[in-house]
């Protein structure tokens, strides 16, 4: 009950942001909801399926670049470009995931890293198409969405629908089976579940929604950059997910918001942001294994008691 209330409050708040009249706030919130979706998508893999990926940025990048290129170079309309871009990232996730799910643990993680660095290399080298390391600048966004507020509502709508879809997926039988696979792959295998297929499905779901986030990112920035495919981007979204709490559905969204806000605000005071982020990470690992969401749950429970 309190969960639904919290969601309503957040939802209403998000709808009202542009009405506050601050361009900066609209920009900031747009950036946060895009990263929140990115982190939520990763959690399907980490939190639900229990597979840690170091290469999630690949699908974000593929979604972003595809959308940018289709919109600008090929002048496709948005209602074609966006689904096509998402389809491409889903397809990439399917192909890459097929190979990755044959491995587990650190080997799985390393393989996802290797694949994502290959995606990065492709973005880097194929400069006639992607702009290379100059970045793909000047994405053509439909006139309707050129206004800041209009784009915000569009992004909010897309993110909202995506989150709703993710919610359904994670709380369906599929999602519950994923958790079972995460907890005990051996036993679930004995019960007749094709563990590998489940993990692949999770991989594809994660990649698809990361692609949506990437496409929104490219449109928002009017550009796509090779940095978005580099392993540091994968590491950042991983930290967001873990900071928020991987055992909760909305945890990663919270983590994304907190990390992004921290980064932006601390940046204004010190150049030693990496040290602060690193210390934060170490503290979370040592004292807050369930992330901020876990902390919130503990506080709620201790209040009830």
């Amino acid at each position, binding site marked *: 009950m309190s969960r639904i209330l919290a969601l309503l409050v957040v939802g209403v708040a998000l709808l009202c942001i542009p009405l506050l009249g601050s361009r900066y706030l609209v920009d900031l919130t747009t950036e946060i909801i895009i990263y929140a979706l990115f982190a939520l998508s990763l959690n399907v893999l980490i939190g639900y399926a229990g597979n840690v990926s170091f290469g999630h940025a690949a699908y974000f990048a593929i979604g972003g670049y595809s959308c940018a290129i289709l919109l600008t170079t090929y002048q496709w309309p948005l209602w074609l470009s966006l689904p096509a871009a998402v389809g491409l990232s889903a397809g990439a996730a399917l192909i890459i995931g097929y190979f990755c799910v044959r491995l587990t643990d650190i*080997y799985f993680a390393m393989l996802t890293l*290797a694949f994502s660095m290959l995606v990065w290399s492709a973005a880097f080298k194929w400069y006639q198409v992607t702009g290379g390391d100059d970045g793909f600048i000047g994405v053509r966004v439909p006139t309707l969405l050129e206004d800041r507020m209009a784009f915000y509502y569009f992004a909010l709508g897309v993110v909202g629908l995506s989150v709703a879809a993710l919610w359904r997926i994670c709380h369906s039988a599929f999602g519950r089976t994923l958790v079972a696979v995460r907890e005990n792959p051996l036993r679930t295998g004995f019960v007749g579940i094709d563990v590998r297929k489940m993990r692949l499905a999770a991989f594809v779901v994660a990649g698809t929604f990361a692609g949506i986030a990437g496409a929104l990112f490219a449109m928002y920035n009017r550009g796509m950059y090779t940095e978005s495919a580099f392993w540091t981007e994968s590491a950042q979204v991983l*930290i967001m997910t873990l900071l928020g709490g991987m055992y909760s559905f909305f945890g990663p969204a919270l983590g994304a918001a907190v990390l992004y806000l921290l980064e932006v605000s601390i940046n204004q005071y010190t150049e030693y942001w990496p*040290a602060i982020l*690193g210390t934060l990470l*170490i503290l979370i690992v040592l004292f807050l294994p369930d992330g901020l969401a876990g902390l919130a749950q503990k506080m709620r429970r201790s209040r009830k008691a």
Partner: protein
Amino acid sequence: MLSNPTFLFLQTFNAIALGMNLFIIAAGLTLIFGVLRVINFAHGAFFMLGAYVCYSIVEQAGNFWLGVLGAGLALALLAWIIERGLLRRLYARDPLAQLLFTFGLVLVLGDAVKFIWGTEQYSVAYPAGLSRAVDLGIAHYPAYLLFLCGLGPVVALVLWLGLERTRWGRIMRAARQNREMLALLGVNVPLVYSGVFVVGAALAGIGGALAAPRLALTPGMDANIVIECFIVVIIGGLGSLWGSFLGALILGLVTVFGAVLVPEWEMVLTYALMLAVLLWRPWGFFGREQG
């Protein structure tokens, strides 16, 4: 180019020298994983610190070898503090926690380097006596690289003998298999763990100091080396000493000859190699197959 025997000869030596330097660093990584089961992302940061410490010692004392020794000792001390204070709380936790911890270390240590030494780029001179080229008959070749070619196998041998023939080595290998049993047998397992982490970090520091004359010391130099180390231990098998030796050689050869044969695709090569190994034989040449 490749038909030229001198060129081939020189490049092969380059590959070996590169590989041996890499091996000394990666040996620490594989040792830490082998016994502690910790993937030490901070290994590159240890390497970087070793290089910077060496630079400072050379600036002050003027002796390169003192710099190498100092780098090893400094990293040993740092590793001791990190392990005793923080890392050991994470042994019971899942690998993800340990990974994140080491990643946090990377960020903190990186800024520490920036804070202490600044953002400028430094260079370390070759040690006197090894700064020029040696006439090998076919061609002239830098003495320092020859030194590295020779040092690698020596280090490998010393480490191997240490693991196989000494009591401490036996204990380390036993800790890899069954730490509970070892504790029951009265061995101070926490001390062993600290020891392994210390030795691994010291190796990275020494590797960094040894690499210093050939590189520019700059913040961010840890990022490249950590990826290369990971590729080396994956090729060789996580936890295997001779695996890292072989892996380092292979990576050295691929890097050097890749740059000659397919220069446009150089950046892709290392990841393609990693991919190939993980797809074909994920546990590497000498690793143990996953259960």
